[in-house]
Structures are given as C-alpha cells and as structure tokens.
C-alpha cells in the first residue's frame, strides 16, 4: 500500500499502564518475594541460583536498553529513532537492578565456590579477584557506570522532547561513543564475575561474547515485543509501519545468527581441543538430564528464530513476531539456567515453583519500572530532528 508521507509528528504522550496489568505486575512481585523466601527455607542454594538466573537476565535487559540507545546514536541510525524511547525505557530498571544486586550479596556464599573458605586455600592466585568484597564492589560500580550513562543519554533525549534542540543529538552521539569502551569492559567483567566464576576453574575467552550475544538477541526480542504492544495500544500506530517491524525482525534475525555463531564456536573449540580443564564444563551440562536442555538451547535460540524470521512477509506480522520473540526469551532464560544451575547441583534440571516464582518476581519489578517510565514520559522521541524521516521509512510498500 502506498502511504502518504507524514510531514509533522504529534507527540503521542506517555502511555499509562492499564490497571489490570499493574495489578498483575504487583502480584508477580509479591509472588516472587514469597517464592524466594519459601525457597530459602527449603533449599537456599537453589533459591539463590534461581535468583541469580533471573537477576542476570533482567539486568541484561536494563543495560541492553542503554546499549541499544547508545548504539543507535553511535551509528547515526535514522529508521530506529521511532523505537529509541522504547529502549530508553528499559534503563528505568537499572536502579532496581542495583538494589537487587545488593540483596544478592549475602547469597554469594551459597552459589559461588570462591565465596567459601575452602576456595582460598585451593586457588590462592584467584582469591584477590574473586572475593566477596571485590565482586560486590565491581558489581555495584558497573551498575553505577551504566546508570550514569543512562541518566546522561535519557535526560538529553527527554530534554529534546521539549526544546527540539538539534545540537542535543550531536551531544548524545558523543556520549554514546564514549560509553562503548565502558560498556565493553563493564559487561565483560560482569559476565566473568557473575556467571563464569560459578566454575572458578573453568575459563573461556568466548564467554563474555556469548553473554553479549544472548543479551543482544533477547534484548532485541524484548524491545520488539514492547514495540508491538505500543503499536497495538495505539501510541506508536500513526508513526510506524510494518516496515519498522520488518527491520526489527531483521535485527533479531541477524543476532540470532550471531548468537548461534558464538555459541557454536565456544562449544566447538573446547570440544576439538578436548582439554579436561575446559571440557568438564560442557560434560557437566550434557549429562544427567541436562542434555535435553543443551539440545533445547539451539532450538529456541536458533532453529525457531532463524527459520521463523527468514521470510520477509512473516517479519511484518505482529503475532508471528511476538511468538518468535517469546521463544527467544524462553531460550534466554533456559540458557542462563543451564549455565548457572549445574555449577552447584548435580541433580537433574527442574524448573519448579522456586524458579518460576522468582522469575515472576523479577518480571513484576521489571514491568513496574519500565511501565513507570512509559507512563511518565512520551513513548516517542517526537522532536528528534530526524523523527519525520524515521517515521516515513519504508521498505517495499
């Protein structure tokens, strides 16, 4: 269909969450607290592990909102400006992630071998880096760095909503480029500290890239889902078209390939070299029931999104995109669960009420934080100098 080009953009304003959703999020948060508290009483290690899985998944979403915003500025992209505020909204979770990280500090000793006294005598060389104090300090500092850049970028973006000042765009580009090296360092070390150190003997130089790829793929899936929700609600309906959906779908598709490439590379190199100090990580995770999960990962993170998003027509269909992105989010949870859980437990994989309850708790808090942002600020950067160009972006129609 041939669309007439828009010549001016009205700000759609904030989108206040429907009461039933707010109630649902609050209920999820309450369930989360209850399930986690119950879990602590039953099996503390398992409860803290499920806490870590959900914590890492949602912290990644928060920092991905910031990274996506910065990336879009750094490459000077135009079509994605209509999506930017969606990504900026995800950063509203970062302060909550900080609090939830502080909550996790007393639990470190249940899940990380380096937090136990035994470790110090066995691995003297690693005790300086991997100690409760330093891991906690690094974790806090990294989230503060992310919050600082998020505050800078989002504040300028919101200011532009009022003034329409084009020079702010230039400033945002500078700040975004400045953020990139910080992001690379902080995110890599976060993945070392929080996931790889679960197996302090094991190391893989691909590991931060693996976590980055998982964050990128699942973060894009989440942004696509929120974008579709806001289109359905109507706020972004006037300024976006299936062309924007198709482009988001293409990005998800691209990072599906990236995720697959990184995941396979890490596995193949360790499999090929066959060194016992490396292979035990995968052996532990491919026996005793874990092999089913190991096979499920490429299904959720590669087969479904790859073949699901291959066709241009399917990428333009909201319902289809929602399903594929949902599968990716399931895959991301399973992936982190698969990385975390076998480190302490020798038991078969069980996703029971502790895991689901804790996940719901994080999802509830995340939903409340992010919807607070969308309910307070306009969901469209409506006075960006290139917003009209972005809204008029068309691919084949």
């Amino acid at each position, binding site marked *: 269909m*041939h669309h007439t080009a828009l010549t001016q953009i009205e700000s759609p304003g904030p989108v206040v969450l429907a009461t039933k959703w707010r109630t649902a999020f609050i209920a999820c948060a309450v369930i989360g607290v209850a399930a986690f508290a119950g879990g602590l009483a039953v099996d503390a290690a398992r409860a803290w592990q499920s806490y870590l899985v959900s914590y890492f998944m949602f912290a990644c979403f928060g920092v991905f909102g910031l990274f996506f915003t910065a990336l879009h500025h750094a490459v000077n992209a135009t079509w994605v400006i209509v999506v930017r505020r969606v990504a900026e909204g995800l950063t509203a979770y970062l302060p909550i992630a900080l609090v939830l990280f502080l909550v996790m500090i007393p639990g470190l000793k249940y899940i990380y071998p380096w937090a136990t006294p035994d470790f110090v005598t066995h691995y003297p060389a690693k005790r300086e880096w991997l100690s409760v104090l330093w891991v906690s300090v690094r974790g806090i500092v990294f989230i503060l760095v992310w919050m600082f850049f998020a505050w800078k970028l989002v504040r300028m973006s919101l200011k532009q909503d009022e003034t329409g000042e084009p020079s702010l765009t230039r400033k945002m580009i500078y700040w975004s480029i400045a953020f990139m090296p910080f992001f690379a360092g902080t995110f890599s070390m976060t993945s070392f500290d929080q996931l790889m150190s679960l197996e302090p003997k094991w190391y893989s130089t691909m590991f931060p890239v693996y976590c980055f790829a998982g964050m990128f793929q699942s973060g894009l899936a989440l942004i696509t889902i929120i974008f579709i929700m806001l289109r359905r609600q109507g706020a972004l309906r006037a300024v976006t078209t299936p062309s924007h959906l198709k482009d988001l779908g293409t990005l998800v598709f691209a990072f599906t390939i990236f995720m697959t490439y990184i995941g*396979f590379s890490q596995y*193949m190199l360790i*499999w090929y070299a066959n060194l016992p100090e490396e292979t035990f990580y995968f052996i532990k995770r491919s026996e005793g029931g874990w092999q089913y999960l190991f096979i499920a990962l490429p299904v959720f993170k590669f087969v479904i999104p790859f073949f699901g998003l*291959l066709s241009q027509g399917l990428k333009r269909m909201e319902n289809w995109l929602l399903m594929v992105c949902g599968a990716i989010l399931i895959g991301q949870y399973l992936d982190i669960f698969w990385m975390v859980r076998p480190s302490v437990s020798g038991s078969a994989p069980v996703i029971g009420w502790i895991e689901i309850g804790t996940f719901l708790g994080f999802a509830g808090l995340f939903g409340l934080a992010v919807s607070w942002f969308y309910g307070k600020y306009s969901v469209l950067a409506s006075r960006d100098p290139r917003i009209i160009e972005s809204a008029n972006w068309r691919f084949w*129609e």
Partner: protein
Amino acid sequence: MKDELGVVVGFFNDPDVILHAADSARKKGWKDLDAIVPYPIHGMEHALGIRMSWVPWVTLIMGLLGVIGGFGLQAWVSAVAWPLNIGGKPLISWPAFIPVTFECGILIGGISTFIAMWAACKLPNKKPRIFDERLTDDRFALVVPIYEGIRTDDVSTFLKGAGADDVRIVEK
C-alpha cells in the same frame, strides 16, 4: 505474453513525480512498466507493479542443498570412503563438520543466486536500451511498453499530464 510493439518513454526531473506517474500508470492497467532512474526510489517496485522476485527461492533451496551436500560429503568421506581415526573421535564427528557445512551452504547458495540473477535479468543483454545518458545522473524515465489495444497517443498524453517534460516513442 503478447509481443511488445514498442515503448513510450516519459522523462521526469523529480523522483516523487515519477513515483506518482508510475502508480497511476499501473492503475490504468498497463503491464511490464519499467523505470530507469539513477538511484533506488523507495516504493518504486510497488508503484510499477513488480512482484517479489523468484531469486530468493533459488538461494534458499540451493543453500539448503549445499548444507546437506556439504555435510553428506564429509560424512561419506570420513566414515565410508576412507574411514580414518582422528584423535579417537567418532568417525562422524558432527561439530567438526559444521564449518565446512556452513561454507558449502553459502558457496552453493551464492553461486546459484549469481546464476539465477543473470537468468532473472535476462543477461547478457546484447541490445541495451539507452534512452538518455542523463538517466544515470539526474533524469528519471518511465517506460510504458505498448501492446495491442494500447494507443500510443493515450500513453503520451498520460505521461505529459503526469508531469513528464519530454516523451519519446521508441519503435521496436
């Protein structure tokens, strides 16, 4: 398909004007429209009534065949034709085959696409139609083929009305 009797070419100076002209020409029911423009104009494919190309299907099918063939070749070579124990690993060690499998998919898919593109574009074309040298610079041409039942005068009048500053009739 009926024989083309010739073409009427309208020359335009503005990409938006030619886009609308192409849209109206398609709505008049004229077939096989073509636009010769110095750079891609978004929406032009739709305006001209050009459907999705069949080339991506060639890429998909040949790419998948390349994947199957690449994996099959390695499995056959290392397990059937010349079984060789490498590092005590199983004869069909699939992780080791994946890079070559992937490359075969890309290679066969790529070469097939290249050949299919030539076929789809009917290349090599010995008689290129050069209507105006400025079409690679700042002019835009809409080409309306004339078939039986279409009057050349109607097309000329339409193109002038749609904003063409020059209309030429090119006999076959």
